């Protein structure tokens, strides 16, 4: 076995390609279908209700698609998708103690989080696009379709990257992620403009249109909604995701991780 010449280290691009293709079959297993179901089930139910309504000669409320998009997909399903998919990324290797097998290769260690995350991003993005198209059939505004797709895919990129980073930074990354998504994000309405810009929801709404429900009179602390230009909002989501992937790669590269998944005092 040792007769041949020793190969040189693969390029970062080759590392990305190898890990993305190598781990791609994982998305077609249980967790991958759970991610798909998070989009398919609410949209599918809406489509079924819509079809039944049409059969009975009733019209669907045009606001229904807007409500499913904002309250179903954006507020609930998208964060859960990230919470479900991110632990199957590089965090999984850390927990299963298979990471040393990767770290002992001469490849670019910083590329592993993105390489393992790419199949999940593409899988989730495909289902989100299908979900956005499905909402059109429920009665979504056609002029907002591209914005919705960009918002969902951009936010999915950012949220998956954030959860991957949090999973490498904290032992209980999923918990911290859940707290961010379900405690911080809902505070959007009472946030001043600066803090509104520190939420995914702000950029999603800037891309896909206003939030589903108007501010009620009892919401005394509600602030005026601010908007970011759609192109800038998309750029922010993509750049934030890229930053999180880069930080996750940097963290993995810098952290000594041994056979037990623990760090030494290097």
């Amino acid at each position, binding site marked *: *076995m*040792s*007769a*041949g*010449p*020793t*190969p*040189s*280290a*693969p390029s970062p691009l*080759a*590392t990305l*390609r*190898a*890990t993305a*293709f*190598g*781990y791609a*079959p*994982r998305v077609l*297993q249980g967790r991958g279908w759970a991610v798909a179901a998070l989009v398919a089930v609410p949209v599918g139910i809406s489509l079924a209700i819509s079809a039944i309504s049409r059969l009975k000669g009733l019209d669907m409320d045009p606001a229904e698609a807007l409500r499913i998009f904002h309250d179903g997909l954006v507020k609930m399903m998208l964060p859960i998708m990230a919470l479900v998919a991110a632990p199957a990324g590089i965090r*999984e*290797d850390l927990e*299963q*103690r*298979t990471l*040393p*097998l*990767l*770290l*002992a*290769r*001469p*490849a670019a*260690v910083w590329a592993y989080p993105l390489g393992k995350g790419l199949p999940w991003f593409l899988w989730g993005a495909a289902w989100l696009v299908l979900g956005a198209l499905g909402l059109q059939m429920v009665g979504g505004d056609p002029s907002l379709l591209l914005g919705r797709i960009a918002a969902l895919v951009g936010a999915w990129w950012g949220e998956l990257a954030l959860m991957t980073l949090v999973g490498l930074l904290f032992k209980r990354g999923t918990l911290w992620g859940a707290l961010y998504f379900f405690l911080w994000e809902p505070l959007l309405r009472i946030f001043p403009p600066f803090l509104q810009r520190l939420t995914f929801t702000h950029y999603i709404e800037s891309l896909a249109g206003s939030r589903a429900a108007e501010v009620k009179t009892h919401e005394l602390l509600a602030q005026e909604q601010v908007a970011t230009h759609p192109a800038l909002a998309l750029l922010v989501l993509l750049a934030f995701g890229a930053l999180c992937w880069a930080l996750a790669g940097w963290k993995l*590269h810098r952290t*000594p*991780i*041994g*056979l*037990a998944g*623990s*760090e*030494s*005092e*290097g």
Partner: protein
Amino acid sequence: MISLDRASLRYGPILGLSPTTFELPEGGGITGLLGPNGAGKSSLLQLLSGLLPPSGGEVRVFGQAPFRNPAVLARLGLVPEGDRLPSGLRADRWLRMMGELSGLSGEALKGALAGALETVGMADRAHLTFARMSKGMRQRIRLAQALLHGPELLILDEPFNGLDPEARLGLMDLLRRLAAEGTRVLVSSHILSEIALLTDRILLLFRGRLLAEGTVTEIRQLLDRHPVELRLAGEPLDLARWAVEQPELAALRMEEGAVVLSVRSPRDILPRLQRAAAGGQLPLRALDPLDLNLDAVFQYLTKDHA
């Protein structure tokens, strides 16, 4: 090939490896890293395989620090302890990825994949997912991933754990073959008899300290104050009478049909014993060295340092 200069490793407040110094020369051969659980074997292997940087001192593999160093990692293969593999993947596809991550591509990758699978005897079962493989099969696949890129240094951490006797012997044969082909094999174990069967050179670790290095015989020679026990079967009184006249005798114990001698320097007394038996002066029926093996060496050394 490998040199440690007062290299140590800490896990927070816990000392995994005390400052350790040793060198392994270039070239093939098997070196056994021996010690009980918690001795620091895995810590040392993690330093050598570049998973962890030393907390103090210096580690050099192929003349360079191995931590996150592709130039070093491209020349070594690591088989970590256990049989863990990524869940839900097929072995052949995962191995292909590992080959690509080692810088292989195209025909070279295909050839390396086929060669590694052939070497570990898994060519016809590599299409299975890890979940459908036995522990022995997974261990072979873990070895295959380490062999893909033809490493000059192969590091195995407790590779015999959980393997059935046939698989152990098969793995030993394979390691001997690789060593004969020029690969330097560094294998850790706490199973003394297996290491004794396998290696021509031993590093003995205990509680994070390197106690001794060398062959079993060399290590044994360090232990002058620890007598070797020899069981001589025959007429006990005659045997005892002969034994008490020998200057190397440290202790003598009578048993039914035998005497057990504790002797300090077996290399000196054994030829005399052989001559006396051959000349008919000694009614010796059998000679059984009770502790001239690795277990005894290990027990002696660790007892001193406990």
